[in-house]
């Protein structure tokens, strides 16, 4: 498995091996695989597209420049998400914010800034009405997630959006497995409460 054509179907470990051998195509493959999940995680946490781009870029540069120090006994995805999560959390800490604003980014202090940093929900619906409903629904869920504590948010996004197993989330967040389960349990309870009005339209 040494040719770039095979990389799209290769496991992360194989692609990382190729990257360590100095193949640029392997580096690009790793970016292609993780750019959306990493960007989504960071964007949902910082609520600022430009900032999320910068932090995602910083994450990948850190990961790829340290690829020789990666230990294959750990999951590559855990390592990437750990660095991405730390980048977002570090930023939030630097901003000295403990909670996120409901609609806009955590550092949005004016109405314009709130609007600019609100998550931009895309859609693929067919009719304008469906489109509107989907947008409203998507925004409502995003708003509800935005109301959670940052650690709950990360857990919920990794578990329910990225589909990561509990033990991997525990690795990423460097928390005991039981704590991760508790966080997810509490986050789900809060979300259930917040999204209760939406149940009627589903």
């Amino acid at each position, binding site marked *: 498995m040494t040719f770039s054509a095979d990389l799209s179907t290769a496991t992360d470990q194989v692609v990382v091996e190729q990257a360590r051998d100095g193949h640029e195509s392997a580096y*690009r493959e790793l970016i292609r695989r993780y750019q959306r999940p990493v960007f989504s995680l960071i*964007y949902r946490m910082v609520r600022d597209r430009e900032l*999320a781009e910068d932090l995602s870029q910083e994450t990948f540069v850190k990961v790829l420049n340290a*690829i020789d120090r990666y230990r294959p006994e750990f999951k590559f995805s855990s390592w990437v998400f750990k660095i991405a999560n730390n980048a977002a959390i570090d930023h939030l800490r630097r901003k000295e914010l403990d909670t996120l604003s409901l609609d806009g980014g955590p550092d949005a202090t004016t109405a314009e800034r709130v609007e600019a940093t609100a998550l931009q*929900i*895309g859609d693929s619906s067919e009719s304008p009405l469906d489109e509107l409903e989907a947008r409203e629904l998507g925004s409502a*869920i995003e708003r509800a997630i935005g109301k959670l504590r940052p650690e709950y948010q990360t857990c919920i996004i990794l578990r329910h959006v990225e589909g990561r197993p509990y033990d991997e989330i525990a690795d990423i967040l460097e928390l005991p497995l039981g704590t991760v389960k508790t966080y997810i*349990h509490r986050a789900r309870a809060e979300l259930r409460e917040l999204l209760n009005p939406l149940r009627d339209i589903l």
Partner: protein
Amino acid sequence: MNDQLTDPGFTIEEDPVLDQLLASLEHFAPAPRFEDRVMGNVITPAPRWLQRVQARGHALVQHGRGWWFLGGLTGVSAISASAIVALLILNAAAVRESIDGTLTGVGLPLWRGMLGIAAETAREIGLLIGSVSVSASVILAAGASVVFVLVFNTWAIYRLMQPARAKGVEFNASR
């Protein structure tokens, strides 16, 4: 999604509606050319075989055995060169005869052929220049332009190399 927890007495309640809502969340994508922007800041390592050679060379020098290795290599080269020279001197007559034969048989016709081509080319160029009527000042200006372009290109290449070198040093220093 099975959210039964392994901890005794601790279960995450199943809620299909909530799961459906969360599953409907989209994956956001970064702006186009994100991959290229990342790669612009990544230093790809040298191929593995080169890393191994470098590491071995480094280890040899670090352990003091490198000098023995390099000395040995130089010694072998010197002995080989001396042996070849001695062989040639001892068989000087035969070597001379062989060279003469090669020159007469292959070298001389080849040389004559090349001279013929060069003479023909020079004659054609002379005729071409003779057919063009330009003043001395035009030729002088053309010559000056050629010199200027040459100097300008050299300067431009030098300038282009400057930022790249500076960036590399800065990046390495910050790591």
